[in-house]
């Protein structure tokens, strides 16, 4: 396997219901909504390690034990759409915003190198449970595309590299 670039290859889905996040089914994944055409930035969706230093009389250096992990602030920046266009990319951008409305709760499924259509049985994905705490337009006069910041609250241990069940 060669090195590869996530953008353009992988996908991020919002999936409303997953019965077992350790083994999401292909049917559940197929019912999800691809967000990739709307996402212009991804924040977080990782956990940080909190190391605890332990002084030991027998050593002159503190040893470490693994402390509580915590999520970094997670969310997406979405490209806004002026509502005029009607091609598939325009629709997908608007769908991403509609899908990630404040109050939405479900699962965010990340695939490194497979798009939604190729997320079939045995493909490995990461699954994060959570809800949308905020979806705010960003107002700036800088040379930026109009965008919206979506803040996600993660509510369960992430499941990483879980295989999609048939």
């Amino acid at each position, binding site marked *: 396997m060669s090195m590869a670039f996530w953008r353009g290859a992988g996908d991020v889905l919002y999936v409303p219901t997953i*019965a077992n996040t350790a083994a999401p*089914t292909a*049917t559940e994944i197929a*019912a999800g*909504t691809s967000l990739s055409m709307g996402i212009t930035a991804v924040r977080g969706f990782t956990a940080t390690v909190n190391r605890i230093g332990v002084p030991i009389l027998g050593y002159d250096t503190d040893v470490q034990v693994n402390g509580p992990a915590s999520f970094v602030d997670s969310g997406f920046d979405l490209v806004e759409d002026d509502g005029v266009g009607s091609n598939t990319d325009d629709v997908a951008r608007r769908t991403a915003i509609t899908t990630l409305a404040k109050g*939405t709760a479900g699962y965010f499924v990340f695939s490194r190198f497979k798009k939604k259509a190729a997320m079939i049985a045995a493909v490995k994905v990461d699954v994060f449970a959570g809800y949308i705490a905020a979806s705010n337009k960003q107002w700036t006069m800088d040379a930026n595309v109009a965008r919206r910041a979506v803040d996600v609250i993660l509510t369960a241990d992430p499941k990483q590299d879980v295989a999609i069940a048939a």
Partner: protein
Amino acid sequence: VASTPTPEAPPESPDDIVNIQHPDFPSAPGRVSREAFETNYADKGFVLVDDNGDPIATKKSTATKSTATGGNPA
């Protein structure tokens, strides 16, 4: 399933957030905007459900909305 986390509802849900579930793979209801339900999920077989996962009628829009968004005050 023991390992399945229930998607927690935010402390204060906007009025247009509804619970949805798919009859073919029932699990904890997902919560989406009514617009997302109508545009993305209704045609995939999802139905509106109450906080207990019981289907609710969709044709009585006012009653449905009231039931579906009755809140989930943690």
